[in-house]
């Protein structure tokens, strides 16, 4: 399995193929429904974003609280399609990848191709398993959102599969 050090620049994204299994190490940002709404509102109003989107990776995840002595609780991916309406705007601002579960709509596939980005799928419904790969975490923004707050996770060898590559090849498409 290919090991990938983050951040992921556009040059390396070109070498990733749909269906390929990867192990990611580095920083990823959690963001789901409400955080997406806030991020896109901030972009529209020209406000400063809580983290730099250029070459960043967003993980659609709302973890459970950590037990004492642990970094994080259960932290698998949530359904990506709920973020479809917001994703093209984030890709336009330089976001390089998203990690989630399930299919994406045409507008997202189009934006992935246009901005040379990539969509990863993580093992879904495996939050306990996923927690083993998270080494550190830090609150970045929107603490009022609780589990939906944006957090920076430092992951080591976090397993993902390339779901949609920058050429628009989609391993989930034929299954829909």
């Amino acid at each position, binding site marked *: 399995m290919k090991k990938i050090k983050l951040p992921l620049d556009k040059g390396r994204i070109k070498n990733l193929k749909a269906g390929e299994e990867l192990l990611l190490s580095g920083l990823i940002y959690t963001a789901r429904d*409400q955080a997406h709404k806030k991020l896109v509102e901030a972009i529209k109003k020209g406000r400063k974003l809580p983290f730099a989107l250029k070459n960043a990776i967003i993980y659609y*995840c*709302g*973890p*459970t*609280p*950590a*037990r004492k002595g*642990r970094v994080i*609780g*259960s*932290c*698998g991916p*949530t*359904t*990506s*399609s709920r973020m479809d309406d917001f994703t093209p705007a984030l890709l336009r601002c330089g976001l390089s990848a998203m990690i989630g*579960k*399930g*299919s994406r709509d045409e507008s997202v596939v189009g934006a992935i191709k246009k901005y040379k980005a990539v969509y990863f*799928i993580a*093992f*879904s*419904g*495996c*939050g*306990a*398993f996923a*927690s*083993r790969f998270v080494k550190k975490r830090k609150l970045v923004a929107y603490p009022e*959102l*609780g*589990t939906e707050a944006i957090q920076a996770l430092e992951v080591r060898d976090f397993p993902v*599969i390339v779901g949609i590559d920058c050429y628009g090849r989609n*391993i*989930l498409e034929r*299954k*829909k």
Partner: protein
Amino acid sequence: MRQVNAKLIEDAVAALVVEANIVLRKDVLAKLSIAYKKERNRMAKKVLGILLENAKIAKNDKIPICQDTGFPVVFVELGQDVHIKGAELNVAINRGVLIGYKNGFLRKSIVSDPINRKALKYTPAIIHTELVRGRKVKVSVLPKGFGCENKAKIAMFNPTAKLSEIKDFIVDVVRGAGSDACPPYIVGVGIGGTQDYAALLAKKALLCPISRRAMVWQPIAKAIAKQSKLEADLLNRINKLNIGPMGLGGKNTCLAVNIQSYPTHIAGLPVAVNISCHALRSATKII
């Protein structure tokens, strides 16, 4: 009249919500193990292997199987010779949910205001209470993840609809869920009653064991056989959709189809489908 202290119910619920979220149901685990052994598609087999590993980690580390610790749905079968004292039943249940979720490090996933999405909380639970014969209280907790709840559908068929139309509808709901809701799925189906009752039956069907017949208590043998066949037919068709574990293909799209039915009106035929992800969680205690 048997006196039951509400505190007993509160404590039971607090323990059940944690158990359900951390220990995968035995029947689900057994089906996943069989699916793992039988699966030939390399990627599908790998995914099923990770699902089994995930269940083991969850149990050993006392960490939820899934980060979506669900909307707590509580089913109570209350013996009519029981008198609950000390607190209202619903208050005791919600207190139990709150304590269990908090102490078990489960997630706050409920917004008090569905439109403005404000005030994130652990409660209220969805509570379905049924009066039954006897002196016992049976409490079942089913924390329902919303990735799969979002894929639920209901259709009001004409009374003259063919069985094939009903089957097509059920299969289409699963096709629509595709890879989004964590396959392999368990499909709960409610047939008959009213619109609301069919939806409840579909949810209740998920509480039934998936390792044997869902409606073993139904007294009419012929009806059981018919329903068994319908469940088997649907399972077979769904598993030909080639969605597979995580949506990567393979023959394990669905672990089981459970149907519950009820008499309905001459003018209609409600059919509800409630999909569960592979992490179908529930736990029961009889007090």
